[in-house]
C-alpha cells in the first residue's frame, strides 16, 4: 500500500516537473520574438500582443497535458497494488519526458510568426492561421504520450514482475521517443512560417510540404508508440 502510493506521488511530481520545461522555454521564445518585433513596429502593438497570447496558449497545451496526468496520479494515491504503482510511475515518466520536445517545438513556429509580423504587420492573418496549423501538428508527439499515459493509468492490475518492467519500459520508450520529433517538427514549422512571412502567396505549397515533412519526422514517434503498445499489451 505504502510503496504503491509512493510510486504514484513520485510519478505525479515527475510528470509536472519535467512537463513544464518545454512549454516554458517555448513560450519564452515567443515572447522574446514578440518583444523584438515590438521594438521594430511599435504601431502594431495590439496585433502583436493578441497573436502572442494565442501562440502562447497553443504552446501551453503540452504543459496542460502534463498537469492533467499529474493531477490524475495525485488522486490515485492510496491504491493497494504494487503493479498499479509502477504503471502510475511509468505514466508520469511518459508524459513528463514526452512534453519537453513538443513544448519547445511549438515555440519555434510561434517565434518565427512573431518575427514575420514584426517585419510586415499586414500579413498577420495569414501568418496566424499558418502558425496555428504548424503548432498543432507539432503537438502530435505529446498527444501520443498522453494516450500512452492514459492507457497506463487505466491498465487492469494484473501481472508479474516482467509486466511491471514492461510498463516501465513503455513509459520510457514513449517519453524519450517523443522528445526528438517534437523539436524536429517545430523546426520544420519554423522555417515554413518564415517562408510564409517572406511571401504569403506561397502558403498553399508551404503548408502541404510542411505537413508531409512533419509526417515523416513523426515516424520515429510512431515507432515509439507502437513499441510501447506492444510492451503494454503483448508482453
Amino acid at each position, binding site marked *: 500500500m505504502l510503496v504503491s502510493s509512493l510510486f504514484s506521488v513520485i510519478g505525479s511530481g515527475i510528470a509536472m516537473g519535467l512537463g513544464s520545461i518545454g512549454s516554458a522555454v517555448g513560450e519564452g521564445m515567443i515572447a522574446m520574438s514578440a518583444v523584438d518585433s515590438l521594438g521594430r513596429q511599435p504601431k502594431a502593438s495590439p496585433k502583436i500582443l493578441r497573436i502572442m497570447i494565442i501562440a502562447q496558449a497553443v504552446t501551453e497545451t503540452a504543459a496542460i497535458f502534463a498537469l*492533467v496526468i499529474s493531477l490524475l496520479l495525485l488522486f490515485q494515491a492510496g491504491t493497494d497494488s504494487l503493479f498499479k504503482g509502477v504503471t502510475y510511475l511509468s505514466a508520469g515518466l511518459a508524459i513528463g519526458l514526452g512534453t519537453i520536445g513538443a513544448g519547445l517545438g511549438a515555440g519555434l513556429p510561434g517565434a518565427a510568426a512573431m518575427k514575420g509580423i514584426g517585419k510586415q504587420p499586414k500579413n498577420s492573418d495569414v501568418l496566424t492561421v499558418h502558425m496555428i496549423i504548424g503548432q498543432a501538428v507539432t503537438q502530435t508527439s505529446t498527444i501520443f504520450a498522453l494516450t500512452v499515459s492514459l492507457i497506463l493509468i487505466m491498465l487492469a492490475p494484473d501481472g508479474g514482475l516482467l509486466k511491471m518492467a514492461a510498463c516501465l519500459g513503455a513509459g520510457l520508450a514513449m517519453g524519450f521517443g517523443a522528445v526528438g520529433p517534437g523539436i524536429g517538427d517545430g523546426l520544420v514549422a519554423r522555417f515554413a512560417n518564415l517562408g510564409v512571412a517572406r511571401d504569403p502567396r506561397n502558403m498553399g505549397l508551404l503548408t502541404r510540404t510542411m*505537413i508531409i515533412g512533419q*509526417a515523416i519526422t513523426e515516424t520515429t514517434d510512431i515507432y515509439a508508440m507502437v513499441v510501447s503498445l506492444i510492451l503494454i499489451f503483448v508482453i
Partner: protein
Amino acid sequence: MDKLGEVSQATLTLFGLSITYNPITFLMTWVVILFILVSALAARKKMSLVPGFLQSIFELIYDFLKDITLGTLGDEDGRKHLPFIISLFVFILCANWIGILPNVFAMFGTLLGVVFSFFDSSIIVTFNSLIDISLSIPENRWFSFLFDLPAFEEPTRSVNMDLALGLLVFAAVQAYGVKNKGFWGYLKSYYNDPFPMKGWMALFFFLNPFFYLNLIGAVANVVSHSFRLFGNIFGGGMIIVIVSSLLKFFIVPVGLFAFFGIFAGLVQAFVFTMLAVTYIQQQQ
C-alpha cells in the same frame, strides 16, 4: 473533490447487449444541439440588411471561416466544404463553451440553504472562513433535488465525443479523396507518395515502406486530431472543477473561466476546424 476522477455511467440493454454510456455527455450534447438550432432559427427569423445582434454573430463566424476555407481549398471546393466546416466549428465552440456556465443548480441550492437556515434549525451552516461554507441539509427538503441535477459539463470533455468527431472528419476526408481522385487514384496516393512506383512495379506496393507509413499516418492523424481536443478541454475543465470545489461552488474563479473556458475553448475549436481543412486540402 472526491467527484474528480469519477465518470457518471449508465447501462442500457439493447437487443440483449448491454451498452455503457455517459448520460451527462449524452444530455449535454442534446442541450448544445438544441441551443444551436434555436439560436439559428431565431437569427433567421429577422434577417435584415443591417444585422441585429444574433445575425451579426453568425455573419462574423461565416465571414471569418469563409475567407480561410476559400483561401486554402480554392473557390469551388471551398464552397462545397464550407457548410461542413462551419457546422464543425459552431458545434465544437458551443460544446466547449457550455462548461463556463457554473454549476448553477448547486450554487442556487447553497444560497437557499443559507437563507432557510434562519427559519429551520435542522439546516446547519458552518462558516469556516469567508469563502469556506459547509452546509448540512436533511434529505427531505424540497430544494435538495437541486444538488442531484447534472452540472453543465462540456460534451467534448468525454473522449467518446472527440473520437466521434475525429472519425467523422476522417470519413469525410477519405470520401472526398475517393470522389476527387477516383478509387484507383486514391489507392495510388498511398504507395505513390512520395516515391512513385510506375508500371509493373506497382504490383509490389507492399514492399514499399512508405505504403505502411502512409497507412499508419492516416490512422495516427485521427488519434492526434481527437486527443488534442480531449486533452485540452479535459485539462481546463479539471482545473476549473478543482478550484471551484475548493471554493464550495460559492465564488466563481472568473479568471480561470475566462482563460480555460472561453479563450482555450475558442482556440481549440479553431485548431480542430483548421486541421480538418488542411486534411481536406491534402486530398486535392
